[in-house]
């Protein structure tokens, strides 16, 4: 919903929040994921919760909230609370601010005393985070501290150990160090958000003393949006790719009319430098695993000539796919999505032309189309929307662009074989199929949240849940990593389930579409069957729950040799495999473990 995308109107959101909520819930065809979110507050959180809900609904996340009693964050976290236990949070957000720091240095304190004060404050928070991780094994999001709105020591507040600002900065450093060494723990950087908003306006003492809001009520939308960005990233709702226009988006001018020698890019003048900075910003996304593509109305020859300029930061090679033609852009983006095998709704479309933006937005449901204005606003409008909010940079992310390229090479190679099995054998595939291992937990959680098409039950899991399944003896968990002569695909298949007596239930079965038709799903099933047999299991039950996106696996269990035992009206099916019967493996070309 446009009203909830940056640049949004905070006053409008605050005033119309009830109507906006109604509108969000009235949208049709949204596939929500449901999450239980506990807010443990050191100050009033009522409107934070209500506005956060709007942003989350807009991201396709339907939250249920627990809200601690006023200022009970420490008690709830450390000593627990039956209501919170019962609630079983998927995620806990600890809303503390500079107002919650009980001890600030006095000018008469010694350096040792101030050090002890820091240790004590930090110990209290570590106690909170440790207790939450222990009790709820869930994701924790914690505010850092905003800078104080007054400076007793003036500029020395920054450098002098007696300064509040100095103290806050040191605490923030420690929070940062903790976050760097703990998984499933994220910092909501209100230090940054408040600075952008204006530190003095943010710390509205009137709102604090009247309502016990630790930030100005008017700042709540900015606060909640920043928090929602982290939550949606944790639950895999980030975007995956850019679809970029070229003329007046990647460079100034129209390459077809002006000629490649006359477009503005490089360092010759202010406009060229501005576009160069934007190209650098776009290019930096490649290392985060964001795929770059072009959707431009141009003759391809001209488009490539623009990128071929020696002073163009972006080169042809930086793009996975370049669609430069005269078709409508929504069609080009839909085709690009099909070729890469990701959803068209996982694109961010950047175009200076409002008409193109409106068309694409209307035709492709769920795609993000930032309302970029003048070129000097491009970076801010894209960046502030947090489409690609990072919650950890995995090896996978860095290699992703290369993997998609290798896939396209494989597609070319397959064309030269008459017999598909021969082609598969030529790939020299090797798989590692093993129980969930600590190094892959983040990737496994990511896959459960991102995979839509080859996904039988579409069960979404946080990393904490994944870790719990791995540790539970009644569970069998398997990840599959696939390598071939073109490169390493990384972890591409995940399945797990639980045993009840002699029956094993498959709770989740998914595979990345980048390894479709390679036989990986058969190799995975072989391993599952072997493991199940070793546990004296005699029957495996599989479940298929249809969604808008997973039709491709409707017949999955049939192909695996299962027998259908039930079909519901909505198309959901249940299948059974008798392990006493011989099972024929469908894997022809993958060498396992």
């Amino acid at each position, binding site marked *: 919903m446009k009203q909830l995308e940056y640049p949004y109107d905070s*006053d409008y959101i*605050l*005033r*119309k*929040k*009830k*109507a906006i909520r*109604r509108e969000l819930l009235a949208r049709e065809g949204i596939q929500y994921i449901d999450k239980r979110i506990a807010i443990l507050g050191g100050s009033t959180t*009522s*409107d934070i919760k209500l506005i956060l809900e709007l942003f989350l609904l807009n991201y396709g996340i339907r939250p249920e909230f627990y809200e601690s009693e006023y200022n009970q964050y420490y008690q709830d976290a450390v000593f627990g609370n039956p209501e919170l236990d019962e609630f079983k949070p998927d995620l806990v957000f600890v809303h503390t601010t500079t107002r919650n720091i009980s001890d600030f240095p006095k000018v008469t304190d010694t350096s040792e005393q101030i050090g002890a004060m820091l240790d004590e404050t930090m110990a209290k928070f570590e106690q909170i985070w440790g207790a939450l991780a222990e009790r709820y094994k869930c994701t924790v999001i914690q505010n850092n501290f905003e800078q104080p709105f007054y400076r007793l020591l003036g500029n020395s507040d920054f450098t002098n150990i007696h300064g509040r600002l100095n103290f806050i900065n040191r605490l923030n450093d420690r929070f940062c160090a903790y976050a760097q060494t703990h998984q499933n723990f994220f910092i909501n950087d209100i230090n940054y958000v408040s600075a952008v908003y204006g530190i003095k306006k943010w710390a509205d003492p*009137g*709102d604090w*003393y*009247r*309502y016990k*809001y630790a930030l100005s*009520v*008017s700042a709540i939308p900015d606060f909640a949006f920043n928090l929602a960005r982290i939550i949606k990233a944790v639950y895999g709702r980030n975007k995956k790719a850019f679809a970029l226009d070229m003329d007046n988006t990647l460079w100034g001018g129209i390459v077809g009319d002006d000629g490649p020698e006359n477009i503005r890019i490089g360092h010759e003048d202010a406009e060229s430098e501005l576009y160069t900075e934007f190209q650098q910003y776009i290019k930096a996304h490649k290392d985060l695993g964001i795929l770059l593509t072009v959707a431009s109305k141009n003759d391809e020859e001209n488009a490539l000539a623009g990128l071929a300029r020696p002073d163009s930061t972006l080169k042809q090679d930086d793009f996975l796919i370049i669609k430069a033609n005269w078709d409508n852009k929504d069609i080009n983006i839909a085709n690009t999505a099909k070729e890469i095998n990701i959803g068209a709704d996982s694109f961010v479309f950047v175009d200076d032309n409002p008409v193109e933006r409106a068309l694409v937005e209307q035709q492709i449901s769920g795609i993000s189309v930032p309302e970029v204005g003048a070129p000097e606003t491009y970076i801010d409008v894209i960046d502030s929307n947090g489409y690609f909010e990072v919650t950890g940079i995995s090896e996978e992310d860095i290699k992703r662009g290369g993997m998609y390229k290798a896939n396209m090479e494989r597609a070319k190679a397959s064309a030269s074989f008459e017999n598909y099995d021969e082609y598969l054998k030529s790939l020299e595939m090797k798989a590692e199929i093993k129980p969930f291992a600590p190094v892959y937990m983040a990737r496994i959680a990511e896959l459960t949240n991102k995979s839509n098409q080859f996904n039988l039950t579409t069960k979404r899991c946080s990393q904490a849940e994944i870790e719990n399944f791995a540790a539970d003896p009644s569970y069998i968990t398997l990840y599959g990593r696939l390598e071939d002569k073109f490169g390493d695909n990384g972890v591409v298949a995940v399945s797990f389930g639980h045993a009840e007596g002699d029956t094993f239930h498959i709770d989740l079965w998914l595979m990345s579409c980048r390894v479709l038709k390679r036989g990986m799903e058969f190799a995975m099933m072989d391993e599952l069957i072997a493991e199940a047999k070793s546990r004296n299991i005699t029957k495996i039950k599989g479940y298929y729950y249809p969604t808008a996106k997973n039709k491709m696996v409707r017949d999955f269990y049939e192909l695996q040799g299962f027998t259908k035992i039930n079909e519901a009206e909505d198309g959901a099916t249940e299948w059974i495999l008798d392990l006493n019967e011989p099972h024929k493996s469908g894997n022809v070309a993958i060498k396992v473990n």
Partner: protein
Amino acid sequence: MTREEIYGKLNEVFQDVFDDEDITVNDATVASDVEGWDSLEHINLIVAVERCFGIKFTMGETTGLKNVGEMVDKIIAHLS
């Protein structure tokens, strides 16, 4: 801005904040007359009123308001 014009805008604020298009308020309206006007919504109401008229109430002004009429008096004082 006349008192009447202020009420015109104020009614819209009330309608948005309490999500009810039928609300109209007058000098005598008090919190118990409006469904949902509790202490939490009061905060939103004050912020929305401030933003609508481009003013900022002092802390003291918002704590002792007896009815909408008094709120309008304060708005007029800020605008003049």
